[in-house]
Every structure is written in C-alpha cells, then in structure tokens.
C-alpha cells in the first residue's frame, strides 16, 4: 500500500515540499522539480518590475502535477499576511497558503501572536492554512484549534542550513499534533531531512539547500532520497540506543 502524505484531504506521494526561490535559472528549477518528483512547490508574491515582466518561474511548474503553495513572506504582522493571502488567491494560486509572519529581518523568526491571529482570520475566509511557526508545542495546538491544515515548525532560521536545532520541541509537536507536521526552514543537508523523517515528521520543506547547492537537480534528488530513507526508518521502527555494547555476533561458541 502506498504511504501517502495527506494534507487537507489531498494526497501526495512525495513528502518533500520545495521552495522555488534563489535557483540559478528557471531551467535548474525545472530540472530540480523533475529530479525530486516534488508535488508541492512554494512561491512568493512581489511587486512587478515594470522594466522586466517575463513570466519567470511559473513556466517551470506543471500545475497538473504540482500544487502551488504561495507564501506570505514579507508580512510583518497579521494584517499584511491576510492581504498577501488574498492577493495570492486573486493571482490564481487557489486557497492554500503557507502563512508566515516574520517581523524582524536578522533571524526571520515567526511572530507567534500575529501568526495565530492571521491563521484564525484566514481559516474563516476559507483558506487552507499551513503556518510557519516556532517549534512550540503549545502554539502548534493553538494553530490546530484555529483550524489550520498542517503545522510547519522551524528547524533553524530560514536559509541558515544549520539543521534541526529544535529537535526536542519538534518531537513533542509530532507526539501531540493531530495535523501533519512539516519541518520547515534551516535544513541544510539530506541527512537533516532524513533525521526529521526518522523522528516522525510527515514532510519537510527545502529551498535554500537545494537552490544554492553546486547542482540543484542532483541535490533535489538527494533530499528526496534522504526523505524516503528517513520515512522508511520511521515506519520500520528505530531500535533503542544503549550506552554499552550489545554484541551483534553470537556470544557463545567463541573459539579462543
């Protein structure tokens, strides 16, 4: 039986969500989507450069295969996040929204109060809300109660490639959440993604680590493989860790 990711009733074979920023070219984004078989891609909304209006990344996305998940990046409070979500919907992105509210630029950590406030508004307005959030188990429950469709706790700051620094809190979120848990932000290597899956995350979101690597398409495939390995390990059930040795070979019949 297929092991499917289900978010808001929609099923996905891939547990990799991929961001589309920072790729060196549209072709390398297209190649990375193909190599990783990703089914959810995030996009952002920005002012048009009136002197350069080519259609950019959209041509790399096959909307029959990939779900477009617009984000509210740039929003500094709930009001701005709600505005961007409405603009995304008007842009034809549908009603899924990766909701992020990051008021300070150095660490770009999400504002929990404004995140919850925006989530409550957007759910009422019919959006399928996937909030980027601090790895805070209580906030995860509050966002679940607000009607969000997944929670997206951060591993470390956006684009930092530092891996999962919040692992203990993410484990609690996974234990307690009734929603899919998507580890977002800061994952720098396929081993980070694999670890997220080993501890029971439902999916991960990667952008910078793929897009800024030496070969994005190869790295996208590496992440997809890492995610598959970690998921299989989680389903198989990892054995217990012990401080002392436990012989793998028989301890009797040893010929000295």
């Amino acid at each position: 039986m297929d092991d499917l990711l289900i978010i808001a009733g929609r099923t996905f074979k891939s547990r990799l969500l991929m961001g589309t920023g920072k790729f060196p070219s549209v072709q390398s984004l297209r190649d990375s989507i193909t190599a990783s078989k990703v089914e959810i891609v995030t996009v952002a909304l920005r002012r048009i450069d009136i002197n350069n209006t080519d259609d950019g990344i959209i041509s790399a996305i096959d909307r029959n295969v990939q779900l477009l998940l617009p984000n509210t990046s740039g929003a500094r409070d709930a009001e701005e996040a709600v505005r961007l979500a409405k603009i995304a919907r008007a842009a034809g992105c549908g009603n899924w929204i990766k909701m992020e509210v990051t008021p300070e630029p150095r660490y770009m950590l999400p504002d929990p109060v404004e995140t919850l406030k925006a989530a409550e508004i957007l759910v009422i307005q019919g959006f399928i809300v996937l909030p980027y959030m601090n790895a805070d188990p209580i906030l995860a429950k509050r966002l679940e109660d607000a009607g969000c469709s997944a929670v997206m706790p951060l591993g470390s700051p956006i684009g930092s490639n530092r891996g999962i620094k919040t692992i203990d809190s993410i484990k609690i979120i996974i234990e307690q959440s009734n929603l899919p848990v998507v580890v977002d932000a800061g994952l720098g290597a396929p081993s980070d993604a694999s670890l997220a899956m080993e501890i029971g995350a439902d999916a991960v979101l990667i952008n910078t680590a793929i897009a800024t690597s030496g070969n994005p398409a190869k790295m996208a495939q590496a992440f997809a493989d890492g995610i598959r390995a970690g998921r299989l390990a989680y389903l198989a059930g990892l054995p217990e860790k012990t401080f002392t040795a436990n012989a793998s070979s028989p301890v009797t019949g040893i010929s000295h």
Partner: protein
Amino acid sequence: MRIYLNEKEYVFDETNLTINDLLKKLNMSCMGVVAEVDGDVFNSKNFSNATIKDGSKIELIRIVGGG
C-alpha cells in the same frame, strides 16, 4: 492625473483609466498580474472594471520564486 504605482509617481493626461488601460500604456501583459487599487484586489479578469482615479495608490504584483 497623478497616480502612485508600486510607490512611484506617474502622471497621465487622462482623467479616467482602468488597470487594463494602465497596463497597455506601460506596454505590459496582464498575464499573472494582480492589481491592488486603493486596497481593493483585482485579478486580471477584472482589470477593465478596476478604475483608477487621481491620487490612486496601485500595486501590481506577480508570482516569483520563494520558499
């Protein structure tokens, strides 16, 4: 009339324009564009109904790569 497009000032001789007219004047396609006129959001199907008046604040927005 004087308008503010993506925070830049533009002056036109006309007194009445729609977003459709504005895009034509700027030689821009409406593909993938969303307009916000004084806080109201319009998709490209409604650009001919999106009227601009003197002093209007307009944002033209599109999808770009992002995480």
